[in-house]
């Protein structure tokens, strides 16, 4: 206790000094998005629902073998979500479009972590176990994690999953953007590499945005004029192109501003250099000093005058 008390005072006095020298008002919130971020465009008009990306993801991330083979396309009959054993899943949607032979045209949607530009999960994480890397990946460092699962609460896409059945060392599980492969081995993300139709295009995010806009411009009839992830939640590294309105394909409608902005603004404007606690502390000391000794006469102050 002695130690924590001393620490406490140390922090207070350091912070006090800091406040005294630099009483700057909290600066406006700024995005921390890296400028050289990589990303992927998932072109839903190309995806054929073969589940090869799921298979490659499973292999490169050394995930446990699936319950049903990756070649079993009946898995698509049910909507799935990424979970602690699967970083990416493909779902099938029928949006009502039919072809010349009156067959419903399916649209397949691959889901994984969006690797947000200003990720809510990383802002929320109590220990900073999740962090946005220079190359765009939102990386998870299990050695810091305490398992509070605030990242899961924060993620607007409901992506991170948890190894709930591990009693002692559970991990948060989500797509890694194949961080090791991309950053250290110079390879492509497993899913982007294997996709037979290049439904997943890997590249620099700014280049991808140009590519995506060109695709929409050249085939206006093929795409809805919306790049999902360009602005959603302040922008994401993974983005989508589609022939159908995204709401019909299970995509959440999100505000354009980054999720962490409000909370971080409040946090920083109240607690930068701990100014507000220090001011409060000073005020309360003042009050305490002012009322010192006055209380003795309060004895009968409430007695009968109710």
């Amino acid at each position, binding site marked *: 206790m002695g130690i*924590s008390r001393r620490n406490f005072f140390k922090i207070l006095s350091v912070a006090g000094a800091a406040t005294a020298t630099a009483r700057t008002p909290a600066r406006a919130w700024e995005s921390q998005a890296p400028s050289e971020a990589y990303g992927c465009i998932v072109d839903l008009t190309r995806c054929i629902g073969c589940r090869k990306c799921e298979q490659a993801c499973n292999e490169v991330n050394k995930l446990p073998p699936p319950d049903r083979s990756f070649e079993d396309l009946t898995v698509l009959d049910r909507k799935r979500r990424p979970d602690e054993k699967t970083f990416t899943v493909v779902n099938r949607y029928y949006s009502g479009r039919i072809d010349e032979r009156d067959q419903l045209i399916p649209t397949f949607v691959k889901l994984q972590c969006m690797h947000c530009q200003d990720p809510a999960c990383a802002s929320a994480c109590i220990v900073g176990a999740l962090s946005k890397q220079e190359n765009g990946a939102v990386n998870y460092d299990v050695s810091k994690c305490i398992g509070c699962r605030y990242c899961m609460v924060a993620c607007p896409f409901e992506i991170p999953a948890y190894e709930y059945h591990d*009693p*002692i060392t559970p991990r948060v599980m989500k797509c890694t953007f194949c961080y090791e492969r991309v950053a250290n081995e110079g390879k492509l993300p497993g899913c982007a590499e294997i996709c037979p139709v290049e439904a997943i295009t890997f590249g620099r995010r700014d280049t991808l945005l140009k590519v995506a806009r060109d695709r929409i411009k050249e085939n206006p009839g093929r795409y809805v004029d919306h790049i999902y992830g360009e602005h959603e939640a302040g922008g994401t590294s993974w983005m989508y192109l589609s022939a159908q309105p995204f709401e019909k394909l299970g995509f959440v409608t999100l505000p354009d501003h980054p999720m962490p902005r409000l909370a971080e603004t409040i946090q920083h404007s109240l607690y930068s250099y701990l100014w507000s606690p220090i001011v*409060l502390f000073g005020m309360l000391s003042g009050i*305490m000093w002012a009322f010192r000794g006055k209380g003795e006469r309060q004895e009968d102050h409430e007695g009968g005058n109710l």
Partner: protein
Amino acid sequence: MSHHHAAPTHSKFWTPGVVALAFVAAVGLVAIIARYIGGIGYVSNLSTARPWGLWIGVDVASGVALAAGGFTTAFLAHILGKHYYEPVVRPALLTAMLGYTFVVLGLLVDIGRSWAIWKPMIYWNFNSVLFEVAMCVMFYLNVLYIEFLPMVIERFKGRVRLPGAPDALNRAIDSLLALADKVLSKIMWVFIIAGVVLSCMHQSSLGALMLIAPTKLHPLWYTPILPLLFLTSAIAVGYPMVVFEATLATTSLKLDSEMKILTPLTRFTVFLLGIYLALKVGDMVIRKTYVYLLDGTSQTNAFLIEMVIGVLAPWLMLLSPKVRQSRRWLFIACTMVVGGVLLNRVNVFVVGYRPPVSETNYFPSIGEVAITAGLIAGLMLIYRFLVTHLPVLNKPEKEVIA
């Protein structure tokens, strides 16, 4: 601080009620053991979409809110110097101390890597609201223990008689206690103020936790002023919680009902609860969320119950001096306030939390309920044990303890 007459109650410990509590605590313990063998998934209904459930909503959020009696009474009695209220400070402090201890125990069960709970001390993320909450709770818990020390010292000072220990040792401990007593009474003001500051910080930040998930929290609760609402409601629930707990304790331990203190105490509540009510209603009007009120979903119904039964009705009741003077009605009104704030925390963290993508429903499992109930029962047991043996509660005026 030394002129009121708190004393150990020395009443019988094992009453039927206590046995029942012990049983609930034991069941909770079994569930906790199961959690550490099979994992969180084995005892709970938590999932990817619903990572936080009963444990965070009740054990942590409500626990923190209901421990607000500690800093609100300390503010009144020690900072504003209204020593008249001194008798309720100690029990409130004890509740706060135990409450926070159990918040931490609840957290230990809830976080996946309990053994890693110290990591936020070295890995800092200043962007994280949870980081701030954790730091405040950690410091505040220490402050609470320090504030509680005088009661231990008072009990044993000059009376240290360790069985079988040589006289010299007993005397050494004794003088140590005397020294601590002297030092503590000199610097206690720092801790009292620090306690209030830390409380204000994390009570409000607990509300800020949900600000990062605007799409998940029902608009009836999601508002940028959520931290302010959490702070005002915590302050408002402080005195009702004292009343609630004092009434229970004095009834069960057959002590004096302390109405002389409780009645005036709740006059402040009328004012504080009024502020909270005004903020809540004002926020609803400004953000035009009243359109949801009659949706009839479980969320909106929970909101209506929270507001009407938990805030509005007890506020109206407390307005009347008659209610404030009647022991029973005061208890009822205060229980409603306590329930209202508890429901508010549960609503924000559990009921109002609707992940839009997976839209999974969540209902706590038997294991989760058992652990939460077990922790609360354990808390009550320790409370009872401590007031039996330490000078916490006010000495009954009618009887004289030998």
